[in-house]
Structures are given as structure tokens and as C-alpha cells.
């Protein structure tokens, strides 16, 4: 299992309050958080800063979370990265669409920061 202290997590959401909450929780547990406020920023950060886990909002400006995942899965350098989708979309078809696009986990808003933290840890543990 990777050391949590070394874990770099990319968190992308256009809601600054959600970024605040997630960043606070993850940084407190020793992770390093890279923030992105839209899909394009998230994709660039994933390419340049090489996070180990990615948390993506579904509905973001520039590129949606789904489009970011598809772009990541098409890129051999990023294809292996574990991705969690964080979204207000709760329909079964949306969940299926998220997983079909390549998401590894799915959390609906409103969310519990503690639960998100544990899921990020679990995703990190499953890294190849």
C-alpha cells in the first residue's frame, strides 16, 4: 500500500466551496492536493503534475468530467490513473455512463468529506 504522505491528488470542481472542503480534509491527512477549476485545467494538471488519484466533478466548464476521463483513458501516460467522479447526477443511467467512460469510483453530491477521503485512500491502494 502506498504511503499516504506521498499521495498526490488532483481535485477538479468549479465550486470553490467543494474544493475548500476536499482540500482541507485530504491535506490534513497528509496528502498533497492539486486544484483545478475546470476540465481543461484538470487535464493539463493531470499531464504536467502527475497525480496518483484524480477526483473530478462531472459538470465543469471547458471539459466535463466525463470528457476528461475519456481523454485520460486515451492517453497511455494517464490511462492507469484511478479516477473518482463527484457529481449531483444520481440516475442509474448516469452512474453507468460514468463507469463506461472509465471512472473507477462514483460519489454523489451532497457528499461527506470523510467518506470521500476514505474512498480516495481505497483508490490509491488499488493503484497498479
Amino acid at each position: 500500500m502506498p504511503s499516504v504522505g506521498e499521495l498526490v491528488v488532483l481535485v477538479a470542481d468549479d465550486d470553490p466551496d467543494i474544493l475548500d472542503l476536499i482540500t482541507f480534509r485530504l491535506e490534513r491527512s497528509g496528502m498533497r492536493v492539486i486544484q483545478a477549476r475546470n476540465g481543461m485545467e484538470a487535464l493539463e494538471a493531470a499531464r504536467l503534475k502527475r497525480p496518483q488519484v484524480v477526483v473530478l466533478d462531472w459538470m465543469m466548464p471547458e471539459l466535463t468530467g466525463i470528457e476528461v476521463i475519456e481523454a485520460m483513458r486515451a492517453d497511455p501516460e494517464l490511462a492507469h490513473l484511478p479516477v473518482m467522479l463527484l457529481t449531483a447526477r444520481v440516475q442509474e443511467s448516469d452512474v453507468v455512463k460514468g463507469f463506461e467512460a472509465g471512472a473507477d469510483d462514483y460519489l454523489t453530491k451532497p457528499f461527506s468529506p470523510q467518506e470521500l477521503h476514505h474512498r480516495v485512500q481505497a483508490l490509491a491502494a488499488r493503484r497498479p
Partner: protein
Amino acid sequence: MSGPLVQISLAMVAFNLLLTLAVVGFRFVGSARRTRYQEAVDRVKPMVLAWIDGDDIDLDFEGIERQALSDLLARYGKVIHGEARDELAELAKKRGITAEIEAGLCRRAGWRRAAAAYRLGDIGAEATDVLIDALGDKDRRVRNAATRSLGRSEDPAAVEPLVLALARGEIARAVGGQALLDIGSAAAPQLDALMLSPEPGVRAVAAELLGRMAMGIAPNLATAIDDPVPSVRVAVARALGRLGSRSAATVISDLLNDPVPYVRAAAATAIAELGMREYIWRLIDMAQEDEFLPAAAAAKAVGMLAPEVLVASGFRFEASPHLREAIDLLAVRP
């Protein structure tokens, strides 16, 4: 230039100067207040985040910091759930913030009342009674805000008032429907009870929502297939089709003989959604012989159930225009 003209000019210059000074003064005061408020938010925010994370911090502030605390609790309360949100609501109540927000529901300006109604939902306040009262507000924005907050409260006590408001068109359908779905499974027994309401609009809304809840067929939903009001029978057929239970097959197939055309159309669509291929030939007959609306629905239903049968039937010489149109629609169906 004569004396009076000079005096008038000087008065106008003085007036302009005063006006400019007043505008600059207001802007300065506003800007200073915004800066002080932002500084207060920056001071309070780390403490609120740590408190949400479980730290034992006494969040008791006065003045502008109290305002910042109230705003931050509403902002964070909107996006979190679970124990942290319950504690946040408790804190807001203990600090008197909830009472202050509730007082906002009595403000003169509609947008202020709407903001208060939204904030009560964001903060997770136990304010079902005042929010139900706000469903009767004269301003639609307030009614919709109260609806959304009642959904966030997940309190089953809000089900009946919400359905009544929906049936009477007092709140937006999408907002009301979402609020009832947010209340979730706790709303199902009350929705089923509302299927016995004397108001047809209430019965139709209740049937539609039961169909969207995916909680199985409620007892009063299936029996409402015989409702005397056609719009309720349509809502029931759609609900049963969405629920996808083949146990409803016989009930829905009876509606194919309903005297009202749009009820027969709804039944044809529901049969397709349930995947009842045994009714294909009955649907083809409908598509050939029925009135425009049910015939068109039946033809599309055949296309959903068995495209190959539709194509074979639609290319016959005597095929109805509805069957031919349904074949065209097959070509553009995703």
C-alpha cells in the same frame, strides 16, 4: 453673462460636486465593507473547515464575523451531508442563526424571502413548518425556494403540501418533483395515500411521482387504473410503464380499450416500455385502425418492441401512415 445665470451655473457645479462626492463616498464605504467582510470570511473559514472536520472549536462570533459564519455554514451545508451537516444545523440553531434566517421569510422584498428559504435548506435547519407556510407565499420565487429546501429536509411531513402545491400549479413541476424525489422512499406511503385524494390533479401528480420512485407498485397505484378521470389513468399507465413490472401487464393492456384516445396512447407506450411482445399484433391493429394519437403511439411501440416486425408490417401495401412513419423514425433512432 448676467448675474442670475452665473448663480444658476455655480449652483449646478456645486450640485454636481456634491453628487460626485456622494457617489465616491458610497463606493468607498461599500468597498471598505466588502474588504472587511472578505477579511472576516478569511479569518473564520479555516475555523469552520476545521470544525466540520471534527475539531472542537467554539464558533461564537459577533458582528461581521458572525455574518461570515452564517454565510459559510450555508455554503458548506449545501454541499455536505451526513453527521457533519446535522451538527452544522445544530450549531446554526444554537447560535441563533437559524432564527435570524427564519425572520428573513417575513421581509418585504420577495428576493430576500426567497434567499432566506434557500438558506434554511442549505443549512439543514429543522424548519419544515415555516417552509410549508412559505409554499403559500405570493412570490413564486419564494415558493420554489421553499420547495427545494423542503426536499433537502427529507421530512415526509412535506410530502402532502408539496403534492398539493404541484397539483395546483403553485410551484415549478421540475422543482417540486425533484424535492419529492429528494425526500425519497419515505415519501412513497404518503404518495400512495394521496392516490385516494378527491382532487384528480393530486392523484395524477402522486401517480407520476410513484412511477419515478422505482419503489415497486404501490397498492393504490394499480387500482387507480380504473380512475374516472382520464388524466389520472394516463399518469397511472405511464407510472406502471416506468416501474417496469410485468405484473402490471394485464392492468395496462386493459387500457388499450379505454374510451379516451390519449389513455390508449399512454397504454401503448407503457406496453413497449414493459417489453410486452405478446401485444405486438394488438398494437399493429391499433396502428392500422385507431385514431391518430393512439395509432401513432402504437406504431412507435411496435418499433420499440420488435423493429423487424414493424418493418415487415410497414412495407405492406395497406400499411397505415403511422407504421410507415415509425419505420422512418427507426432510421433516426439512436
